[in-house]
């Protein structure tokens, strides 16, 4: 077995046992990135010098026995996390020259745990997209089929981990941006509870929905990385002061007695039958292992897409106002006056999808429309949260597909934003309700002569990450879908 196919848990153990050094490991991944990243367009910035310095420091720590829990393990960060002294672009022309002067809390914490930073991954511009095709740096390709999208917005992180260019990567999930790419690239993707992980230093898209998480090759890895990421941060007022459980220890919780709720609304006519079949087979595996399964209905859930596409653009229209060409980021040449500076800096700096959402958001917050759109959306959001709360009175987790289809072809949905938005139909609910959710590999469908991965989504109650991770881990002990690696990248 080669180094790049090992999980984070295996790498951390190997490093601690000094079976290989972090420098060796880092050079190996940097070599793969150099060779394979360009065809995938997975990275915006490769931080080779920083990686080698991190690795040497980690090796010293490992030699002294003082390294953190993830000492020497290479990782990549989505290019939405500010990294001190390193370009942080959000895959936008607007920030194509922006070197962050500080580390995001997520970056700081993973670094404190001993990780080695390989680079910053490509993404949809400002995390707005479901296919990674809105990036200023061009689309990311899916390692399972280079003609298809890896999902978005954390598409670069997904492609990098799926192609074994990094053992794990961070992501952010505002409406499914971790889980959907994980599903489309055969990865485990966890979106923690809103407030579980600090948003400080994460460039904001929609503040009430954004949550940092990770894309990994196993639930165990997600547990290890969440452990290093979670917890209260005084710099983020929305981060919660709840104790952080021992996620790794709780992975052992058995499936027996688990109460699963099947989301009726997720098995609708929009679901690709092949994808549905994979999900149903996964349910049988869980049932055989002692879980009980019942159907639950969340009647307001079908309203989640329109609700999301009011709330998220509203917040984004305000959050992105700071990109005005005055203090940082793109500034147009020779502005004539203030208005010209704003108009051209923003006109040139933002791509079409970002502009569409800023305009939508500005509209729904406008005098005379606020009540009909923004306020109504917030009410529906409360109804959706209440639906979930009712469901969790009866079941431990709710379950369904992550995405209605497997990976689609590049360009297939770019001309029709609504079709693209509907791609998030199963993932958005968890964001609106602030709930933790995970996508785990559960099979493959054949399309165009290729095998394409399918994801199973589990949604938990607030701060129920432990349960989601243990269910996923136990499922991964019974299956080996997550062990499969895209042909050509093994």
């Amino acid at each position: 077995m080669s180094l790049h196919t090992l999980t984070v848990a295996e790498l951390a153990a190997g490093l601690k046992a000094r079976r290989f050094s972090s420098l060796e490991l880092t050079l190996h991944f940097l070599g793969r990135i150099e060779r394979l990243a360009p065809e995938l367009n997975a990275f915006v910035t490769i931080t080779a010098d920083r990686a080698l310095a991190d690795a040497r420091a980690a090796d010293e720590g490992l030699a002294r026995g003082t390294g953190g829990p993830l000492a020497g393990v290479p990782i990549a960060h989505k290019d939405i996390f500010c990294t001190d002294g390193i370009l942080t672009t959000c895959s936008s022309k607007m920030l194509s020259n922006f070197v962050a002067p500080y580390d995001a809390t997520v970056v700081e914490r993973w670094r404190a745990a001993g990780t080695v930073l390989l680079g910053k991954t490509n993404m949809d511009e400002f995390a707005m997209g479901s296919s990674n095709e809105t990036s200023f740096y061009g689309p990311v390709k899916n390692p399972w089929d280079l003609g298809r999208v890896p999902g978005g917005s954390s598409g670069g992180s997904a492609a990098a981990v799926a192609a074994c260019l990094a053992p794990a990567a961070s992501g952010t999930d505002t409406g499914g941006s971790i889980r959907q790419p994980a599903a489309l690239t055969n990865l485990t993707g966890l979106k923690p509870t809103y407030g579980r992980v600090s948003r400080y230093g994460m460039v904001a898209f929609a503040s009430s929905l954004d949550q940092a998480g990770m894309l990994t090759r196993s639930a165990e890895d997600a547990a290890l990385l969440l452990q290093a990421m979670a917890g209260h941060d005084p710099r983020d007022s929305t981060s919660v002061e709840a104790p952080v459980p021992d996620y790794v220890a709780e992975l052992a919780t058995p499936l027996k007695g688990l109460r699963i709720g099947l989301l009726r609304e997720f098995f609708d006519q929009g679901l690709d039958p092949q994808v549905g079949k994979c999900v149903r087979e996964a349910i049988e595996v869980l049932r055989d292992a002692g879980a009980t399964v019942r159907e639950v209905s969340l009647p307001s859930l079908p309203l989640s897409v329109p609700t999301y596409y009011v709330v998220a653009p509203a917040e984004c229209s305000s959050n992105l106002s700071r990109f005005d060409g005055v203090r940082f980021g793109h500034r147009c040449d020779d502005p004539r006056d203030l208005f010209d500076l704003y108009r051209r800096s923003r006109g040139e700096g933002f791509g079409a999808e970002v502009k569409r959402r800023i305009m939508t958001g500005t509209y729904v917050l406008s005098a005379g429309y606020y009540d009909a759109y923004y306020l109504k959306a917030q009410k529906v959001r409360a109804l959706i949260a209440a639906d979930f709360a009712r469901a969790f009175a009866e079941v431990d987790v709710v379950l369904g597909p992550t995405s209605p289809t497997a990976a689609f072809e590049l360009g297939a949905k770019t001309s029709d934003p609504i079709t693209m938005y509907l791609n998030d139909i199963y993932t958005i609910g968890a964001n609106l309700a602030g709930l933790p959710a995970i996508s785990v590999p559960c099979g493959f469908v054949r399309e165009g002569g290729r095998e394409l991965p399918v994801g199973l989504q589990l949604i938990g109650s607030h701060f129920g990450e432990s349960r989601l991770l243990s269910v996923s881990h136990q499922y991964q002990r019974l299956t080996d879908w997550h062990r499969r690696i895209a042909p050509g990248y093994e």
Partner: protein
Amino acid sequence: MEWETVIGLEIHAQLATRSKIFSGSATVYGAEPNTQANLVDLGYPGVLPVLNGEAVRMAVRFGLATGAKIARRSIFARKNYFYPDLPKGYQISQYERPVVEDGSLEIVLEDGSRKTVGITRAHLEEDAGKSLHEDFHGLSGIDLNRAGTPLLEIVSEPDLRSAKEAVAYMKKIHTLVRYLEICDGNMQEGSFRCDANVSVRPKGQAEFGTRAEIKNLNSFRFVERAINHEIDRQIELLEGGGKVVQETRLYDPDRGETRSMRSKEEANDYRYFPDPDLLPLAIAESVIESVRGALPELPDEKAARFCADYGLSDYGAGVLTASRELAEFYETVVRRLGGQPKLAANWVMGELSGALNRENLEVRQSRVGAEALAGLLARIVDNTISGKIAKEVFEAMWSEGRDADAVIEAKGLKQITDSSAIERAIDEVMAKNPGQLAEYRSGKDKLFGFFVGQVMKDTGGKANPAQLNELLKRKLSG
């Protein structure tokens, strides 16, 4: 037609916290541009606001001092607009649910009557930076030191009926925020400023007229002038058959007039919505009670006590309680003197305030301290010097920094209370002025003053006035 004016004020009081409302930057005035602005104040990508608890406690102090309701749960909202000195493209403020609502305070009108002015609300918000349009050769400079400075915006009901009432109200708030130590009240530095909403209506009409808002008035004088000018402008407009347009106007102190800044149609749509980066502001009962327990004696309470305990007039009590420092100075004088509150009041309001005003000093900068003043007044009380001589002594104390006894001793100003010495002086004056003496005795009473003056002149003003009067009267009448 007879017109009635309706005025409401929005006062912005900069809260005297050490750090900004949502970041740890310092708030000291006058630092080098952009040296007190960190990544949060600069609105960098990824940064988040964290509320300064001290600003909240200050808002609660204000609310409790004005008998207002303190919202147990209030909301921070974003007010969205583009301007270079507004780094995030939005100002964090409070919109639908402010922290303080439904307060009031009482003002004293010119005729001595009292009037209660309603305070609709007071809310917390952050200040913007400053745009500097000079010195940059056609460009503008941005100083973000002030960006994120905490403000309490205090909105009155439209209860004010004249510019004088508006100024009285603004002064009252000014006194109050300084008593509460939540704002330094420095108007030159912009720590205390206001916008005035002004409208007029025919007397007796129930509905309000269309209002204009005059922005950024930073002195009491400007408030009065700007409002009076605006009232005249509106009445002239209406009487000429015109209409008042709802708009924002700027006061130009050089030309003494207001001019249009933007009309209602041009007004920004601020697209307020709750700031998702901040949780609703929850204020626990225990916090409110601890703030209440630490409230100082408020101006009205203090003035009432001064009337009752010291026998002062409403006017005197009002003047002496206009600032906490002045009131403390006064009470120290009375305490040191062991009584004589009226004498002390006259001196603090008279000689002391005069000297302070002359040199534009604050009470705490006074060259004659409360103890020293009490020392001087004690010499009046014990007849060492007369009130007139005391003024001379005071001037010497002020300029030389010595205490009263030292000045009296050095200048030999001690009053003559020895009757025989005064009688000798009178005899000499009478001997020197036989003509005047004859006139006086033939009925020209007015010449009494002449004799007083002559004796005083000969004694260097030191003769005890009461004794002199009595002795002189006796001797002149023969």
